[in-house]
């Protein structure tokens, strides 16, 4: 896209984009740290995730203010307008993901004193890594205005959903085996659900990138992988 005649306009848009990328980087780190702190029972790291969320929130506020200012002063149209609308929605989604990571970190603080459930911490971390990779690619797609990559991210949410389904069943099994696992499994399940929701939010952002470039929201349905709403008990779910 060529430059604006007013170079200050270009600088404004670039500045907002830089803030989004910075916020995205912080949220990526929050996801990975939240999962890692659970696996390594690292309460100090969990505490860092909780503290960093305040900074993420502050950047969202800054993005909202800059976007409002640009709308008021520059009256953006067409691609420029879509760029601003996209930024607002991406910032809101990133903020939500930050909240989910913070919630995971809180639960880590609770879980350190409880028995570990075999393999579930590592499975959660794998799921978190997948979401973090999706987020990274989504941010790249945003920066490069790359519809193909955004579409790829959108389709990958299916994998996250399947990981969540598998964990959901695993937790059910552990709880049925020994009721003393219930508290731990409940916390772990909320964490898995958090990561699954993060995946949905990344998917929404990827769709927003497609809208930014093409002017239209993708219509083609993607696979929905979260089947847990229909699981009654383990026998049926097999």
């Amino acid at each position: 896209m060529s430059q604006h005649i007013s170079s200050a306009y270009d600088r404004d848009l670039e500045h907002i984009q830089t803030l989004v990328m910075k916020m995205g980087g912080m949220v990526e780190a929050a996801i990975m740290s939240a999962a890692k702190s659970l696996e390594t029972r690292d309460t100090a790291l969990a505490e860092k995730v909780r503290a960093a969320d305040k900074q993420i929130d502050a950047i969202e506020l800054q993005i909202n203010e800059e976007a409002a200012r640009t709308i008021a002063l520059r009256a953006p149209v067409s691609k420029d307008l879509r760029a601003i609308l996209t930024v607002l929605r991406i910032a809101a989604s990133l903020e939500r993901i930050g909240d989910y990571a913070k919630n995971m970190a809180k639960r880590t603080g609770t879980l350190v004193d409880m028995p570990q459930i075999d393999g579930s911490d590592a499975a959660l971390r794998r799921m978190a890594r997948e979401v973090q990779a999706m987020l990274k690619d989504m941010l790249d797609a945003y920066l490069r205005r790359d519809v193909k990559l955004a579409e790829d991210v959108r389709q990958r949410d299916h994998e996250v959903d399947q990981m969540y389904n598998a964990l959901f069943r695993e937790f059910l099994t552990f709880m049925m085996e020994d009721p003393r696992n219930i508290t731990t499994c409940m916390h772990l399940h909320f964490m898995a659900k958090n990561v699954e929701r993060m995946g949905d939010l990344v998917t929404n952002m990827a769709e927003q990138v497609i809208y930014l470039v093409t002017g239209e929201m993708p219509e083609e349905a993607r696979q929905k992988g979260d089947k847990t709403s229909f699981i009654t008990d383990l026998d049926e779910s097999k």
Partner: protein
Amino acid sequence: MKDNTMTNPKISAKGVQVHYGDTHAIKDVNVEIADKTVTAFIGPSGCGKSTFLRCINRMNDTIDICRVTGDIRIDGEDIYDAKVDPVQLRAKVGMVFQKPNPFPKSIYDNVAYGPKIHGLARNKAELDEIVEKSLRKAALWNEAKDRLQAPGTGLSGGQQQRLCIARAIATAPEILLMDEPCSALDPIATAQVEELIDELQKSFSVVIVTHSMQQAARVSQKTAFFHLGNLVEFDDTDKIFTNPEDPRTESYISGRIG
């Protein structure tokens, strides 16, 4: 460019070319404009939008070196046909210019001039009625009714422009052409004229040339983007300002180079 042909267009132009001496000002423009809508012509200076506008009421005839070819029809009738009287045509296709240009006469006479020469009123009472109706339509009646004999040039800029609009609509035209009607007006007067345009489109087909993209977005349902004598894109105003097809349109409306 997207096909915008329609059934029963008010104005239809096919293969219109305009030359000023050696300059090729309009290059093969094809467009159809519906009745009772506002159509905005936008584009950088010298793109041909005003030249094309002036083809619609044959204002270009008054310029010796200007040559118009192609086919322009209003309600299916060729306006460049030898039988058409340009003076009659201009009563049917009114025009408002960039700078308010009231005649150096009273407010009343400014509005009464057209109906008088076209014989639209049989007596004084009828003429009075046309003047009042036109001034009301132009949203100037309340400000002007107590000083109809005062000179039109004594009004403020915004009032003068509305007087010119009243003058243009006094001959009961079917089409109103406006060539940057607000560029000499302050924001309040501009808003009043825009409100007026919104009202006028119930009765006429309005075609407005404007340099203000925001104005085009505010007042029109259709927008045509001209560039270097070409009609680059013609579509719903919503579409032009949210997701135009042509990169040249995108660059222009978003204030970019290129």
